[in-house]
C-alpha cells in the first residue's frame, strides 16, 4: 500500500464483509507526543480467539476466492516500519477493533494519503453501512457521522450523487481546517 489511507480503506472493507452496520474510524495525530494512532472499529460478527491468534499470518484468510490474506499483515508491517504496532481486539457477536500506532515523525512512516477519498469510497460503495469518522490533529478535530446525514435524508440513499458531493465538500473543508 502506498499510504495509510489505503490501509484504512482495506481494513474498513474487512469490517463490512464481517456484516458491520457501523464502522468507526478514528485518527489521532499527536505531534507533541510524536504519536499517530489509527483505530478502526466495527460491529460485525467478530473473530474467535483461535482465529485471532493467527489472523496476522498472511496465509490466513476468510475468503474463498484465494488462499492468501494480506490486508492486516501489510498494515502491521507498515506500522512496524515506523516504530509502531498493530493490535486487534475481537469478540464474536460484538465486533472487531484494530488499533495501529506509529511514531508520527518517523522517517519511514507512510504518508496519511487521501483520507477524504477513502471515506467517500466507503460511503458510496456501502450506502447501507454507517461511518463515523473522527480525525484529530493536536487540539483540532473533524467529525463526520453518516447517521446524522441519513436521518435527514429519509428514503434518499447516502450514495445519491448529490449527497456524495455534499459529503465530499464537507470532508475537504473539514480536513482542510485541521491541517
Amino acid at each position: 500500500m502506498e499510504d495509510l489511507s489505503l490501509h484504512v480503506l482495506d481494513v474498513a472493507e474487512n469490517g463490512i464483509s464481517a456484516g458491520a452496520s457501523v464502522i468507526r474510524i478514528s485518527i489521532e495525530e499527536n505531534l507533541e507526543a510524536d504519536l499517530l494512532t489509527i483505530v478502526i472499529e466495527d460491529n460485525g460478527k467478530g473473530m474467535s480467539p483461535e482465529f485471532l491468534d493467527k489472523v496476522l499470518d498472511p496465509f490466513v484468510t476468510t475468503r474463498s476466492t484465494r488462499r492468501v490474506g494480506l490486508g492486516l499483515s501489510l498494515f502491521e508491517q507498515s506500522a512496524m516500519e515506523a516504530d509502531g504496532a498493530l493490535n486487534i481486539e475481537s469478540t464474536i457477536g460484538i465486533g472487531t477493533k484494530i488499533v495501529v500506532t506509529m511514531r508520527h515523525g518517523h522517517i519511514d512512516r507512510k504518508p496519511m494519503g487521501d483520507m477524504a477519498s477513502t471515506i467517500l469510497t466507503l460511503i458510496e460503495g456501502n450506502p447501507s453501512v454507517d461511518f463515523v469518522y473522527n480525525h484529530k490533529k493536536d487540539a483540532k478535530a473533524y467529525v463526520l457521522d453518516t447517521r446524522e446525514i441519513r436521518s435527514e435524508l429519509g428514503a434518499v440513499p447516502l450514495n445519491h450523487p448529490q449527497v456524495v458531493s455534499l459529503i465530499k465538500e464537507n470532508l475537504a473543508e473539514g480536513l482542510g481546517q485541521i491541517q
Partner: protein
Amino acid sequence: MPKISIEDLKRIKEEQIGKMVLRGGRYRAKVTVHMGTCGIAAGARDVMTLFRELIAEKEMQDVILTNSGCAGLCAKEPMITVEVIDSAPVKYVLVDREKAKKIFEEHVIGGHVVEDYALAIGSETMAV
C-alpha cells in the same frame, strides 16, 4: 468544524422523492469496483474516484457506483463489473483512468461493451 447543512439535505430529499417514484427506484446501470486488498493496492480507489467524477460531471441520476471484495484474480486488478439493465454483466480487468473513461463513455452511457478490456464475455469463466 463545518456542518453539512440540513437545508441542503432537505432540498435533495424533496427533489429526489418525485424522481425516485418516476424511476420506480431502478437504476439503468451499475458499476462495481472490486475493492479487496489486491484491488486497493493496484489503484481501485482512483478508479472509483474517476467514476464518481464522471457521474457527477454528466449529472447522471440512473447510474449506481458501488464496490465489492476480491474476485480471486488479484493479478488482473483493478477490476470492475459493469451491469447495464437487461444485459449480462461484464468484468473489465487491469483498469486504469484511461480505460475507465472509455468504458464509462462506451458501455455505461452508450451500452456497447468495450471488448478489448473485458475479461470474458458471455460466461462466468475464471480463466486468466
